[in-house]
């Protein structure tokens, strides 16, 4: 049965698990190297598959020396467009908006560098690797279209997931014409690649028309659907194990082409196959954050009140599919302005299709918007925090809807206090440390929508008094194994050690996608509801049993706590789960629950998490090297399930902000369209020494509207605000406004 939670349930569950800073329940496995990631699997008779990738960005493969590869000792087979198992569906089809096109050796076309052009399958990894090198592909090369100016631009049909590409609220042109203070500035952000530490991996075994796979997935049910369609088998025939992801950040949300090629290779050779991407092969077929060029025009009245925000973003997408980074949409929610316009234009270039990457749109858009807000505050002669407070949005600016909750003012106050913002000089280049380094302080506002997808869970209470909670959730590091178990324990009215939490495989109830910072909220709601449903069943058993001390309590209701049901109006009367079930002669009872957005609440309220990030940087006054020395973030994100894990998530997001502002950038050769730093030595992500001091505060926030548990999600908000805060701190340290990210030594050196 399935039961939806009401806001005033007949039966309450009380627990003390939610809110506790438990250490990770999978911690011991992880520190002992026993957590099994996809590539750690090795079924009997397994072969190794290695992808050969194109070195051109556009054109056709005219020849492959398959014979040379096949002759190589240990090579078993070579999968090519002319030798491959058939697919049931065109991988370039778009059966649903979340199906992105993938290259599965259907033809000889090359549409980006690092695209798969063949797969070599061998007895050893070494032989497969060498076999792939021996293919020596020849190409017909066409000129690559590269970068934001690589082709004619056009207006995309939608951005993000079905958002309108252009949104107008008021008339920005009129407002700008009448503004007392005005800025116009253009910011550029680079292509970025997710670079989860775990490369995409697939270990696939076929048994007739049944498929068993180990692969990292942020959305197993969607992967089953996609794979089922491509392979022509029922989704239920596909068993996915994804207990641990070595990071995803969006790149493992949708099953990628190389993962499917691993499955096809296993089909072709009739043996289990392991296919793991090399690091350089991750720069192409598994998504990226596209480069953007964003122009902001902002106006205020004479008192520093915003009158107009015009945010225009140019983005790239692939030549063959449609994903548009919704960068300008960051201006929809942050600052009160009577006129707001956001618009996008797009350019088709010869890259893999950009996709969701941690805070898609929000990260790119917020670094530009937060920089521009800093610039207009300067133009108004105002402190950046005062400016933000003056333009505080009491309702969502673009829609006029009230916020379901918004403790941003407290975030500003607490963050500023912890950071010591009050002493900040207004003018730049005023502070030096004892060693003579330029010191600057900057801030940014963080927001991220509080989303909900759809999830299911199944709850069981057993006659020994213990519980089981099942939901096929995905732990990519955010801590699903722990946080969802905490929700499960409270949902069942049990201690966490009495609950067996089952997750991470596709045969469990669908927990929805782990993305959009919505997984804990969505799967958590399903778990919460499943718990309510099974407790309701248990209560029915007890209250209808004249031998139970709870007999006749039906109308009063019961409270579930620590493995017992208590009569709500008389807590002296109670009975343990075990006794109820044993007397009833039932081994276990079960019930299901779902989690989904409440459309009524969504249409009435704007739902977002909020935060404020304060950054201190030091800049070498002659050499231009920058180091972030302090970051303080204050966040209000609804109910916090596990403060320890939430702190870690927010730290991680803030480090992504540092990386966005100062480090990461894919460098592409403008002639060949190949990425020149497709590695981890020159594609710089922060190292430990780049992260000296982090401080996170969370502000209590009770949100009765977002979902039953009041969770808003913290996976992505940390990136937003942080990138802008660091960039603004660099300006404050140096007086140099860099509008191209990441900020490099050469951008500062001669302007210091």
């Amino acid at each position, binding site marked *: 049965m399935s039961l939806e939670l009401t806001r005033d349930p007949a039966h309450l569950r009380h627990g003390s698990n939610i809110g506790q800073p438990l250490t990770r329940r999978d911690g011991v496995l992880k520190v002992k190297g026993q957590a099994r990631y996809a590539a750690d699997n090795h079924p009997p008779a397994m072969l190794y598959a290695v992808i050969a990738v194109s070195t051109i960005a556009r054109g056709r493969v005219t020849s492959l020396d398959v014979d040379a590869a096949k002759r190589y000792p240990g090579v078993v087979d070579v999968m090519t467009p002319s030798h491959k198992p058939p697919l049931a569906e065109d991988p370039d089809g778009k059966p649903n908006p979340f199906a992105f096109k993938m290259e599965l050796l259907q033809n000889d076309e090359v549409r980006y560098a690092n695209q798969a052009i063949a797969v070599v399958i061998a007895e050893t990894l070494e032989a497969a690797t060498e076999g792939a090198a021996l293919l020596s592909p020849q190409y017909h090369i066409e000129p690559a279209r590269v970068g934001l100016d690589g082709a004619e631009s056009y207006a995309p049909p939608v951005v993000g997931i079905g958002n309108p590409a252009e949104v107008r609220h008021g008339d920005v042109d009129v407002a700008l014409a009448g503004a007392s203070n005005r800025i116009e500035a253009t910011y550029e952000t680079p292509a970025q690649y997710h670079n989860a530490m775990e490369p995409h991996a697939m270990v696939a075994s076929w048994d007739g028309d049944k498929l068993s796979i180990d692969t990292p997935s942020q959305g197993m049910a969607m992967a089953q659907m996609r794979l089922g369609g491509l392979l022509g088998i029922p989704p239920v025939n596909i068993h996915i194990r994804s207990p641990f992801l070595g*990071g995803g950040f969006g790149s493992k949300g949708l099953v990628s082409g190389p993962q499917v090629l691993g499955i096809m290779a296993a089909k072709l050779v009739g043996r289990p196959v392991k296919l793991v991407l090399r690091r350089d092969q991750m720069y192409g077929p598994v998504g990226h954050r596209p480069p953007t060029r964003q122009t902001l025009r902002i106006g205020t009245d004479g008192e520093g009140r915003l009158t107009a925000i015009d945010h225009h973003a140019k983005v790239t997408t692939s030549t063959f599919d449609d994903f548009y980074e919704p960068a300008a949409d960051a201006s929809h929610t942050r600052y009160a302005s009577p006129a707001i316009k956001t618009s996008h234009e797009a350019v088709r270039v010869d890259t893999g299709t950009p996709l969701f990457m941690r805070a898609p749109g929000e990260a790119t858009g917020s670094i530009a918007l937060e920089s521009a807000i800093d610039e207009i505050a300067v133009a108004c002669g105002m402190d950046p925090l005062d400016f933000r407070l003056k333009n505080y949005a009491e309702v969502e600016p673009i829609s006029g809807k009230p916020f379901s909750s918004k403790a941003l003012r407290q975030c500003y106050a607490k963050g500023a206090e912890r950071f010591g913002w009050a002493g900040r000089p207004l003018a730049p280049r005023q502070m030096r440390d004892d060693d003579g380094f330029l010191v600057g302080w900057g801030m940014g506002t963080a927001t991220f929508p509080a989303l909900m997808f759809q999830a299911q869970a199944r709850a069981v209470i057993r006659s020994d008094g213990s519980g089981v909670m099942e939901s096929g959730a995905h732990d990519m590091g955010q801590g699903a194994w722990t946080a969802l178990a905490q929700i499960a324990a409270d949902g069942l009215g049990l201690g966490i050690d009495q609950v067996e939490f089952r997750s991470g495989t596709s045969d469990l109830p669908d927990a929805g996608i782990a993305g959009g910072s919505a997984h804990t909220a969505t799967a958590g709601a399903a778990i919460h509801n499943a718990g309510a449903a099974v407790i309701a069943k248990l209560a029915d058993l007890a209250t209808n049993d004249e031998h139970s001390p709870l007999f006749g309590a039906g109308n009063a209701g019961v409270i579930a706590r620590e493995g017992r049901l208590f009569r709500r109006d008389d807590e002296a009367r109670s009975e343990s789960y075990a006794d109820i079930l044993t007397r009833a002669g039932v081994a276990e009872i079960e019930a299901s629950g779902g989690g989904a957005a409440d459309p009524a609440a969504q249409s009435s309220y704007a739902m977002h998490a909020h935060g404020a990030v304060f950054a201190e940087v030091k800049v070498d006054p002659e050499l231009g090297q920058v180091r972030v020395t302090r970051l303080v973030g204050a966040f209000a994100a609804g109910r916090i399930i596990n403060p320890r894990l939430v702190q870690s998530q927010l730290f991680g997001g803030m480090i992504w902000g540092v990386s966005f502002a100062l480090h990461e950038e894919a460098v592409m050769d403008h002639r060949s369209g190949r990425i020149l730093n497709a590695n981890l030595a020159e594609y710089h992500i922060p190292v430990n020494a780049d992260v000296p001091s982090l401080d996170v505060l969370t502000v209590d926030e009770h949100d009765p509207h977002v979902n039953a548990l009041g969770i808003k999600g913290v996976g992505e908000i940390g990136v937003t605000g942080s990138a802008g805060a660091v960039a603004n701190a660099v300006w404050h340290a140096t007086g140099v406004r860099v509008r191209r990210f990441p900020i490099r030594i050469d951008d500062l050196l001669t302007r210091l």
Partner: protein
Amino acid sequence: MNFSISLTVNGVRREIELDDPRVTLLDLLRERLDLTGTKKGCDRGQCGACTVLVDGRRINSCLALAVSQDGADILTIEGVAHGDQLHPVQAAFIAHDAFQCGFCTPGQVMSGIGLITEGQAGDDPERVREGMSGNLCRCGAYAGITEAVLEAQNTLANSDQRRSA
């Protein structure tokens, strides 16, 4: 061409027949000895996920040919704990939430053990940060990692003192 090598892996001496000189120490551990705790993040010495101790020193096992390690003493993440008794670095990683996805964690733990053995960082957080900078963590668990290594170093120093007292 076959190569016979002898390695001590987590205290156990193993005679290994290699049919291929290209096999790296990392691939030997993961694909041939079923020691998959050590991770492959980049395979090019740029991320540290494959860190193991060879003769007591932390190295990137992806850039070491197995055949060249003949005679070496290898310690991997699987050999660090004594049964249920975690190594102080492992315990401190859990206590300080020094990881999220966990993929870089075996390398971080081995690197932390190596750093403490090297004895160069002392209790200086900046030296620990620098010394742990060869281990990338995309989740951004660096603050916890630094705290965990400092705490474990302290724990080990105290237990050494007790032993020598």
